[in-house]
């Protein structure tokens, strides 16, 4: 009867015992005793809907049907009822809808195996040459184009030298790297513009150039506003960066003792970040038994906080999306056996960061598809994402090791970052 009451018997045996039980009062008594054996508790239950809905988390199929608007009214109502109660499923739906929107255009892009095997930034030029060599006419055409290109650059350099000798104001330097760089440009200047460029840069396998009229060439897929910024940058060699006074925190005497905290907050520190759920990082506080992270908005209202994090954790990924375009303040409390220490301490300015606005983020997505390090660097710098700008300009300098413009851009990005 013990086995029957837990129903962990072969089905045929269960059925046979069930039939017998229905007609045998004695065995019914045995069943009751057996059910009570495990330590019977008083019956208690709830009729609250949230209790009954607590296991009804959305599965993948429901998510897809919900996002396709294919649910019938009853099921939609049941899902809505669960979503009102379950923060996890709410976030599941939100992120899934955002993902679908984000990849909508990508779903139409073909991804053949050949594409999949070719790293975008490491082209095998030897292989390209070998393939050309099999077709002599193409190889000859390539050589002629290369010679024409070199002559064009040489003529440009000569003209610039003449200008300088004539005492004209110096123009931004043409990058000689276009001829020295073994990576051949995929869009030779002579084929994209009748104008002779006054400046050009290798950029992820393309050449971006500025013609005499001040127009940029070779970045047609970049939004016009960024193209204008790039043109302006190439003319002035000055990186546009935003005023980020809002990210400079104020000192406050309300956040604990004046003791200097034994640990610092590392990231994000007075910068703009693209992610709505950044991973915050801080230094380890020796002897701490746990950490707690707090994030508040510009009005000082707490937005979210972490649970108690173990002492070996010195990072925490924000558990909910932060609002785009907003400035946030964050702090970490290190808990010790007999005290708590907050960083930044009261003698230090508040630690703030800003989440990139929705409009700028949308623009960023487009720029990423372009693959232009120059365009991304200009965008990042303009938006105040100095780490990212520096990284893009580092790559640009690697591709243009002799370009003064690329060097200046990197230097300016580094200066902005260290401010």
């Amino acid at each position: 009867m013990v086995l029957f009451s837990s129903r962990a018997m072969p089905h045929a045996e269960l059925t046979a015992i069930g039939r017998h039980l229905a007609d045998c009062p004695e065995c019914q008594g045995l069943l009751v005793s057996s059910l009570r054996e495990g330590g019977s508790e008083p019956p208690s239950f709830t009729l609250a809907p949230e209790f009954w809905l607590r296991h009804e988390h959305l599965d993948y199929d429901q998510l897809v049907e919900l996002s396709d608007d294919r649910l019938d009214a009853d099921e939609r109502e049941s899902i809505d009822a669960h979503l009102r109660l379950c923060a996890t499923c709410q976030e599941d739906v939100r992120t899934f809808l955002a993902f679908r929107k984000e990849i909508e255009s990508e779903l139409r892009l073909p991804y053949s195996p050949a594409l999949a095997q070719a790293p975008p930034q490491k082209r095998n030029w030897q292989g390209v040459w070998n393939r050309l060599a099999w077709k002599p006419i193409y190889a000859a055409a390539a050589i002629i184009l290369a010679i024409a290109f070199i002559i064009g650059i040489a003529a440009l350099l000569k003209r610039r030298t003449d200008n300088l000798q004539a005492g004209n104001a110096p123009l931004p330097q043409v990058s000689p790297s276009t001829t020295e760089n073994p990576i051949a440009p995929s869009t030779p200047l002579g084929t994209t513009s009748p104008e002779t460029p006054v400046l050009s840069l290798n950029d992820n396998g393309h050449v971006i150039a500025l013609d005499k009229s001040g127009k940029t060439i070779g970045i047609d897929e970049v939004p016009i506003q960024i193209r204008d910024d790039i043109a302006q940058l190439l003319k002035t060699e000055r990186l546009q960066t935003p005023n980020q006074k809002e990210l400079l925190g104020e000192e406050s005497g309300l956040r604990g003792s004046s003791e200097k905290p034994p640990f610092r907050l590392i990231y994000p520190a007075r910068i703009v970040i693209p992610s709505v759920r950044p991973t915050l990082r801080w230094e380890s506080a020796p002897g701490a038994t746990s950490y707690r992270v707090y994030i508040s908005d510009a009005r000082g209202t707490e937005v979210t906080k972490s649970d108690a994090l173990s002492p070996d954790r010195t990072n925490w990924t924000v558990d909910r999306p932060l609002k785009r375009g907003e400035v946030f303040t964050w702090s970490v409390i290190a808990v010790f056996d007999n005290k708590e220490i907050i960083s930044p301490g009261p003698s230090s300015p508040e630690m703030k960061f800003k989440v990139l606005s929705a409009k700028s983020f949308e623009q960023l997505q487009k720029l990423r598809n372009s693959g232009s390090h120059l365009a991304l660097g200009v965008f990042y710098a303009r938006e105040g994402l100095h780490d990212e700008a520096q990284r893009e300009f580092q790559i640009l300098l690697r591709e243009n090791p002799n370009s003064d413009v690329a060097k200046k851009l990197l230097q300016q990005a580094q200066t902005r970052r260290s401010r």
Partner: protein
Amino acid sequence: MFALGDMDQLLLPYLRATDHSDREQHLQEILSAYAVPEVRIALRRRLSFFVDAHGKSRHNQDAEDLFQEIMTKIVQALHDLTEPSSNAKIEDLKEYIARVTANCCNDVLRKQSPSRTRLKYNLRFLLTHHEDFAVWKSAGVTWAGLREWRNERVSAAELSGSIDSQELAAFRSARWPGENTKQVALPRIVREVFGWLSRPVELDQLVSIVATIQSIEDLPTIALHENVSTDNSSAQARLEGKDVLRRLWQALRELSTEQRDVFCLGFEDESGRDLFTVLLENEIVTFRELAEELDRSTDDIVRLWSKMPMDNKSIAEELKVSRGRVYQHRSRALEKLKKGLLPFSGENKY
């Protein structure tokens, strides 16, 4: 081997048995009477996993696998107790079962962190909606890859092959040098991963690879339903006591058949017991009355009882209605039952 005095009394018949078949019989009793109920309740509470009394779940292979994994661990531990050279001991069987189950559930929760689950959903959508990608099942495993790989035979070595973490790190830094991979479009990452592997990969393994590439961290372990908010209405709608249970049974008989069945099949009391168990244990009904009142054969009652409590999906299948209908029937049932029962909620407590 430890002295029998160190062991939980519940284990003594099993440990004292000298005959092999006798010992196996006692083992079955321990598993059926103590392990199965405990594990079923824990799986529901921690993971919203519903398995029947035989560890089966029609809709959730993971739930079945986990149930079997836990039972195997318990059986192994009980076998170890009988080894002459073993120093193992179990002083509290129920506590031991609860600990093994909790550990296994925690492992699953770690793998099922919300961010990882969302990544898996996104990957499934991408793989099923992009014409160059595919996801398919073979030999009980869900595979992901390029569409043209669907019919390719994968060698046994590749099937069992795991991805070396150092190789993965090297791949990541070679493909996305200096890039924040969290911001790289998922289709691009998937394309690169398939190009790198040049073979199909288990969907779960793909999730792990992409999670590593994008530095998606697991959040602290919590049970899913802990994120479900409750309010005062929960406390107000709480009922207890034998008399209230009797009234519940009377009220159930006044509901429509659909409302009653939906409520009965999904009912779970605060201890995790199903409705039939609670009614029988408290002698509100006999086995025969249960069958007669619910207008079902005793065979059917036994069959349903071994599956209860059931989740909405299983109830919908059992009653041959949509999940939305199940929700509607239950909502109406709860409303009617509240009206009938809440006025008596303060009476006749134990």
